[in-house]
């Protein structure tokens, strides 16, 4: 069983886009059984409609997709109402925040009511990690440590920095916050993956392809070809996602 922990569906304002049907084809080619799907930022800027699109895809293919709602914390109470609609009524299984595309720092207090909602409703929060100024891993840790009961998934390992300097910060963030999980898309440092598994245990890592930004056939190799135990591979490829999105 392979679960892709992070895929964007729909036509993005920023050019890329896959439909649920195109995603199913890619999953088939790469050997992925199930995908956690998150809306793109759509051309009409309407994340509520985009959440409904994801919810519809989950209804159409319930064995294939786990849906996550995306909201803009700048919308204040409207964002909370949208979460009630998308997560409580449409049954999406998590909350996605994209600080880069929605323009906010992840530890800005506008995010706190969303974390309160996540805690009340036992929903995981997925944060696009590693973007300069808005989702540096220590900013993510500053949020995550305030909500120790909320599972926080940071994508991209929390580092989009090939100089390697953010790597130590991201690892420190993981050590500071036991509720923090890292996704592996674009995570070039195999040593970081191995250190995470060996030092923090096999439950802190999930495979994510980050389609369409990244390439699933390459991304999956970061786990399948890693020097970690079979147990840790299985946890990263499915066990951890099943637990987080149960």
């Amino acid at each position: 069983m392979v679960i892709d922990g992070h895929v964007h569906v729909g036509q993005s304002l920023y050019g890329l886009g896959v439909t649920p049907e195109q995603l199913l084809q890619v999953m088939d080619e790469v050997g992925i059984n199930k995908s956690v799907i998150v809306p793109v930022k759509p051309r009409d800027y309407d994340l509520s409609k985009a959440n409904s699109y994801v919810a519809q895809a989950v209804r159409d293919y319930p064995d294939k997709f786990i849906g996550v709602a995306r909201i803009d914390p700048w919308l204040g109470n409207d964002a909370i109402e949208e979460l009630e609609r998308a997560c409580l009524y449409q049954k999406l299984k998590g909350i996605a925040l994209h600080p880069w595309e929605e323009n906010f720092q992840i530890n800005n207090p506008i995010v706190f009511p969303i974390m309160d909602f996540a805690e009340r409703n036992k929903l995981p929060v997925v944060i696009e990690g590693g973007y300069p100024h808005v989702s540096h891993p220590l900013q993510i840790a500053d949020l995550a440590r305030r909500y120790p009961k909320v599972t926080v998934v940071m994508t991209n390992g929390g580092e989009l920095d090939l100089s390697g300097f953010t790597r130590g910060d991201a690892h420190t963030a993981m050590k500071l916050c036991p509720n923090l999980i890292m996704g592996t898309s674009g995570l070039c440092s195999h040593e970081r993956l191995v250190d995470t598994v060996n030092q923090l245990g096999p439950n802190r890592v999930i495979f994510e392809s980050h389609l369409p930004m990244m390439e699933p056939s390459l991304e999956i190799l970061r786990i399948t070809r890693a020097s970690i135990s079979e147990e840790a591979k299985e946890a990263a490829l499915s066990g951890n996602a099943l637990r987080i999105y149960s």
Partner: protein
Amino acid sequence: MIIDAHAHIDEVQALGWIDPPEKLVSLMDKAGIDKAVVATYANLPGFNPTAMEYVANAVNKYPERLIPYVRLDPWYGDRAIEVLVEAVEKFNFKGVKFHPVHYTLHPYGEQTVNIIKKAADYDIPVMFHCSDEEMSLPLQIELAVKKVPEAKVICAHLGGYFHNNDVVRMAATYENLYVDTCEFPYPKYIKKVVEQAGAEKVLFGTDLPTTNPFVEMEKIKLAGVTEEQEKMIFGGNIARILKL
């Protein structure tokens, strides 16, 4: 023959990056990589004056496997040039590595340009860390390339996560500009460089030992280039540049 155009050996306690040559060579053996270009993490001149001997000793131990580049800090001006002269003339180093994020200087500043000119005199390549961070942006490196068009300049990491289009355009624009493929995550941009600049511009690199060599190799195979182009990328091009 598979040649990795970008790898590291060094032992830097302050960063916790402990990567002796044995560790690199063992990963190369595992992945089937025949030779690797190596540089330290430390810049010269700098906090570790023995960095050049460290690399030279490693090459003596693995003469068929390791190809040395000298990693320089242009802050030191003429002293950095003296190190380059010693590296080439005494130790037969084959190229220069710049990581401007480590020393925080503009790539097109006079002190860096002077070193690039000296490297061009020796006809050895200059590799820049070329990614998303300040001081290593492709457009900053382009200004250096314009000042020394005869120098062979390698943009490592193909522009990182976000600056790939700039690097593709630069590879297509400047005759002596090359790219390497290590760490960055997009096979499709390898194909773009091949299509727009030519397969002779692309160098396979891993940034070992922190990375997974199998992932880095598969990235090339996923780019969708011809078998002949793949061979050039996996070693033919860097062998030509370094006159191996």
